[in-house]
């Protein structure tokens, strides 16, 4: 024990000697006693000598674990602006090196990490509310981290501290209520700038430190004596209400400009202040508008929203070119973008060239859609090329980025986005969609880490190893889906077709028919996507009512069974083509023979024995019967001209192709004008499907150069099952169209000063004639 005691004393002596004699870098010769701030683990050197630990003239040395080694130093100065310098362990020796001298604390690290300038000369407002009006400069390597893309500073071997700022950040609390309003981030590498705006009245960043920026924006890694993270004061993505505009480049002193993500906005659509944004809208202005900084061309939108739970379920991707002229003021400049409050209405009331609507159908597997539900980002590259750049880009088949994401699209939409609720599958759909696709099962690449279920290659080409999928289509062209087909290994295994008053379901060698209530339409109701709390709630209530116990889409039999009405089954019968005629059900059937069985009244026709063969099934007004198949037979109606209204030139040519046959016909129309000097000019060419027992309307815009009597000819060439060769029909018309201004006169009206050239021509003649006369008077030459 004595030995131990002696050793213990000796150790103290040695330690004391070392402490007193050796030039310890941290505490060589303390001039003043620091003021301890134990609740923050800090020693404050009162360098301005006011006897207080303050935030404007002192140096705060943080030693949170009391090991005598500084983990962070904050130095406050009045220069004359009020600034704070943050020093961390730049030389990677595990501590912030400093020396206390008679003049104060001498920091031995080469460069500060952060310099913060209080724009209004104070860190705190009355009542100790933080004053979020400041400029911040950060020196060091960083990378984006987390959902909000905060700036992660640690983890680099080379922390790139060179005294040159790498990050420029600015913050504003315009009304001094302690709630930050704007944040601007300017990055040197990569060249980038963004503005984040807060609209959330509950966003009050709180710090446990007296210096409000520490612990909020500035996140130290105490164990490594380094500043770990510079967080956004205003979260860019997870703030329930707010938005950001990113530019993809520094602004370089411009005062007014549009952004790229312009903006990406988040809304508390439910109005429940639960911290979850029910709506996120990403507006992209990919193309800048030359010389018109206030004019913004909106090109893409991702409009994602949640309805019944805090999880994104629906999404509209919109593409086109919609111009807006806005100027939203910000501190120090203005940005040309749609004001935050108007964005949802702007998106839903604008006409877009193309749209992809999606509903995430998975009930078990919940994905985090922090930026909304992604569209196929590889496909939209080609889509932009085609729709926005007008390039002849061949579009691959569309492939949803995720399993169980039902997506419906139209790349020639050219209207405002409208949704409708189908009573057939009890789901929301995109009005006028060309096609819908839901991938239920597929072979997925386990090494794929792009964040999607499919690889980049699969998404770009639309080719994936799909096991089960469902397609939706609008076969009669009325804007609503009427045909669902379930595929297994690319083979159709189930098909469900809706026509007014009838639904037909085919599986294997049985065809089922159900007579539906006559008032059951393809759409139960239509709506715009929700744009405010009221419309969100209305939609929520409707969906809650109408989607209750809706069948999953992996079985069309369940859909068929859930529909009301009496039904019958035609066994030993397979389904062929179904006509696109919207007015009735016309389908080709092949049966091995139907036996006489009792059937409901509507299906009395099938109660008899029907021999094997090919038939045409027709169903109209609640009655069903079979006919012998017959080929298409098309005639053209007379061509009429509808002049455009007002002073607009030209008009529309209107005529119909009427199919009296029992098969749809694939037709090619060529509309020509016979020219007076011989030959013809092609006005319009079109491929069209003419439904059986129906007609196809043609409305062709026509702007002839001048008016008068014009001779037109429409020629329709068509093919159809049961037709051995293409058939042809024609219609001719002589039309009188209103005449624009008489053109012959325009040649001279354009140059009314004809006197000068006429006089010159006369003078030339007056000069030439006597000249020629004089030559004629010459004698003959030898």
């Amino acid at each position, binding site marked *: 024990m004595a030995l131990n005691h002696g050793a213990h004393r000796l150790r103290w002596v040695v330690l004391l000697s070392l402490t007193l004699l050796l030039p310890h870098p941290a505490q060589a010769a303390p001039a003043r006693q620091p003021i301890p701030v134990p609740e923050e683990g800090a020693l404050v050197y009162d360098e301005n000598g006011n006897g207080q630990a303050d935030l404007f003239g002192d140096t705060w040395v943080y030693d949170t674990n009391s090991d005598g080694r500084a983990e962070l130093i904050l130095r406050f100065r009045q220069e004359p602006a009020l600034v704070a310098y943050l020093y961390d362990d730049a030389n990677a020796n595990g501590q912030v090196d400093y020396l206390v001298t008679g003049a104060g604390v001498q920091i031995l690290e080469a460069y500060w990490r952060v310099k913060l300038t209080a724009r209004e000369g104070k860190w705190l407002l009355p009542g100790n509310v933080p004053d979020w009006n400041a400029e911040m400069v950060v020196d060091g390597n960083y990378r984006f981290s987390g959902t909000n893309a905060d700036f992660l500073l640690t983890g680099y071997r080379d922390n790139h501290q060179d005294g040159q700022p790498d990050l420029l950040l600015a913050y504003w609390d315009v009304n001094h209520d302690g709630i930050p309003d704007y944040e601007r981030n300017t990055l040197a590498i990569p060249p980038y700038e963004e503005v984040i705006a807060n609209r959330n009245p509950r966003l009050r960043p709180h710090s446990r430190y007296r210096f409000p920026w520490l612990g909020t924006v500035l996140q130290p890694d105490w164990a490594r004596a380094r500043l770990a993270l510079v967080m956004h004061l205003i979260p860019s993505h997870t703030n329930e209400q707010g938005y950001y505009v990113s530019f993809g480049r520094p602004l370089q002193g411009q005062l007014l400009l549009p952004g790229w993500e312009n903006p990406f906005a988040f809304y508390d659509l439910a109005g429940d202040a639960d911290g979850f944004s029910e709506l996120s809208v990403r507006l992209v202005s*990919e*193309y*800048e*508008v*030359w*010389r*018109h900084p206030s004019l913004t*061309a909106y090109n893409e939108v991702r409009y994602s929203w949640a309805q019944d739970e805090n999880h994104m379920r629906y999404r509209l991707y919109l593409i086109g*070119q919609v111009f807006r002229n806005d100027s939203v003021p910000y501190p120090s400049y203005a940005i040309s973008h749609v004001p935050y409050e108007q964005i949802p209405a702007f998106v839903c009331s604008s*006409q877009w*060239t193309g749209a992809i609507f999606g509903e995430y159908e998975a009930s078990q597997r919940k994905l985090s859609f922090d930026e909304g539900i992604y569209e196929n980002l590889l496909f939209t590259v080609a889509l932009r090329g085609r729709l*926005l*750049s*007008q*390039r002849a880009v061949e579009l691959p088949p569309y492939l949803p980025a995720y399993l169980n994401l039902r997506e419906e699209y139209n790349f*020639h939409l*050219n209207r405002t986005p409208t949704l409708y609720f189908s009573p057939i599958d009890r789901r929301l759909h995109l009005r006028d969609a060309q096609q819908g696709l839901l991938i239920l099962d597929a072979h997925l690449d386990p090494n794929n880490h792009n964040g999607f279920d499919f690889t980049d290659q699969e998404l770009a080409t639309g080719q994936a190893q799909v096991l089960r999928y469902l397609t939706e289509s609008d076969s009669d062209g009325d804007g609503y889906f009427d045909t669902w087909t379930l595929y297994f290994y690319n083979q159709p295994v189930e098909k469900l077709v809706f026509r007014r008053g009838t639904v037909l379901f085919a599986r294997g060698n049985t065809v089922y028919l159900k007579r539906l209530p006559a008032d059951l339409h393809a759409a139960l109701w239509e709506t715009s996507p929700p744009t405010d709390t009221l419309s969100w709630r209305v939609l929520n209530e409707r969906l809650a009512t109408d989607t209750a116990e809706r069948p999953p889409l992996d079985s069309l039999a369940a859909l068929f069974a859930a529909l009301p009405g009496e039904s019958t089954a035609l066994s030993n019968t397979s389904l062929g083509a179904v006509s696109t005629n919207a007015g009735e059900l016309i389908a080709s059937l092949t049966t091995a023979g139907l036996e006489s069985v009792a059937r409901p009244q509507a299906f009395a026709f099938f109660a008899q024995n029907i021999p094997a063969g090919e038939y045409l099934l027709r169903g109209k007004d609640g009655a069903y019967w079979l006919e012998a198949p017959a080929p298409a037979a098309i005639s053209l109606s007379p061509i009429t001209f509808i002049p*455009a209204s007002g002073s*607009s*030139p*030209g*008009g529309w040519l209107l005529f119909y192709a009427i199919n009296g046959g029992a098969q749809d016909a694939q037709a090619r129309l060529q509309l020509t*004008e016979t*020219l007076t*000097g011989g030959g013809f*000019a092609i006005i319009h060419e079109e491929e069209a499907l003419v439904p059986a027992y129906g007609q196809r309307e043609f409305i062709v*815009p*026509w*702007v*002839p*150069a*001048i008016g008068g009597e014009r001779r037109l000819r429409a020629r329709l060439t068509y093919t159809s099952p049961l037709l051995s060769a293409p058939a042809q029909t024609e219609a001719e018309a002589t039309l009188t169209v209103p005449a*624009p201004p008489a*053109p*012959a006169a*325009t*040649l001279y*009206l*354009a*140059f009314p*000063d004809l006197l*000068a*050239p006429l006089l*010159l*021509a006369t003078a*030339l*003649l007056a*000069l*030439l*004639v006597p*000249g*020629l*006369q004089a*030559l*004629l*008077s*010459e004698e*003959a*030459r*030898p």
Partner: protein
Amino acid sequence: MNARSEPRAASPLPALAFALAVRLLLTFYWLTRFGGHLTESDAARTTLVIRSVFESGQLLPAGKPTYPYGYLYPAYVSALALLSGLDVLTWQQWLLPFAGLILTLLAFVLYLRLLGSPKWAACAVTLLNLQGDFLYTSQRGSHEKLDFMLIFLALAVIVLAALKTTSLRQRLALAAVYYLVILAENTEHVFFATTFTFTLLLAFLFWLAMRRRQQLQIMASPWVIYIALMSLLFSFLVIFYWYPPARAILYTSRDLLERVRLILFSAAEPPAELYSMVSANWVLPGAWLWLRVFDIFLFTTALIGWWRLVRLFFRRSEASDLSQASSHFWLLLLFPPFFLQNVAVVISDITGSVGEINNLQIRLIPLTAFVAAPLSAYAISHWAARLRQATARFATLRAIVVTLLSAVVLTLTLIKSVSEPLLANAWIFYTPAEEAGLAWLNQNIPYIEAEIGRRTPRVWAGPTFRLGDLWRQETWSTGDHRIPVFDRGQTTYTYVLLSPQVRLNTLRYHEALPNILNAQRIYVNGEVEIYYLPPEARP
């Protein structure tokens, strides 16, 4: 009466004044017919090149348009613009058409030497100036006027060297001038120069043939070979050392035949738009042939005159009068090569034997007319007195016929030289309203700067490139070439510019206007309307 029979005191000045006055009035007509609102593809392109040279101070400015066949004309106009302080377009549109007066002067000097009579020289120059292709190409803002000057100078020097030079000093001086002129022509348009050399060589062969046939003791002609070889040396230097774009043209020719054609007929450039679709470009079918009536007259009378000289040549008693010291000898010598070249390309035109490079008349007819005009004047001079005697009793009728003929010739010339829009469909004018509309378009249409390569807005502005030429001529500059205007060759466009002239032009070509029923009218200035086609309304 020829020069020798005229009194020695007769001054050539009145005849020269007459020829200059005709050309001056023709130039004024050219300028006033459309109030100076002229645009045309070659001139627009040349203006573009001159601006590049002028703005960069380099003959081959990197990344800017250049004229691959030579640099002299752009350099020359740039220098004029620099010295005068006037802009390039002013020179091109308003001042350089008067270069036709210099051409007239040079032609008069040459013809006076060839014909020996100021009156008939003036007649020949006037016939030349009334030739539509010559007038058109020497008025518009392209390089041909400079080519013509240099070729006239070269011919004049050759004739002078043969006729007048006795001392070595004179010969050396003329040789120096000749080589300078040929060098200049090589830098102006190297393939024009090779074509001219080819013409001279053909003349030399013709010379040899005549000498062998007649066994005349005319002076040996190897110096023609020397100057031809020297000219080829200059061409070689320009193509392979001085001016890389010319080499590129040669190398990018598809095959040997095309290269030969290029060198012999300077046929590399596509034909001028004005004559590119001969039939479609005139309102009346066959109008182009009627408009060639004067050319047919000119070449027929030239052939007759030439045949008369041939007959004279083969009469031994008169052969001495047609020695190489005789002025007429050169008419006899030079006409066949020019004419044969022209015949070759006319056959080529008719048969389509050179594919897309047809319609070379615009390039070669003026050159042939250089020699055809004095020959025609020579022929007329021999008929004049006989005609006068034969019609002595019908002086009034003769005056009326002469007046009518003059009016017809003049009308044909004026129609052809300005491509008179009453009859022609390929127009070389624009209206002030169209210019204003295009300027507005260029300044105001949203332009997708970040997507310059793949999303440039395009404008449909009629069935021809007329307003495209205007855009190129007027609005293009280093920082302002934004809105390309396209014609019917383009199938995609974002904007449609309509004017009464565009409508009429579309009708003339039997085409329908673009569908603008769903378009948005974004600009109107009274006559011109501009429509924006939203994506769904685009073709």
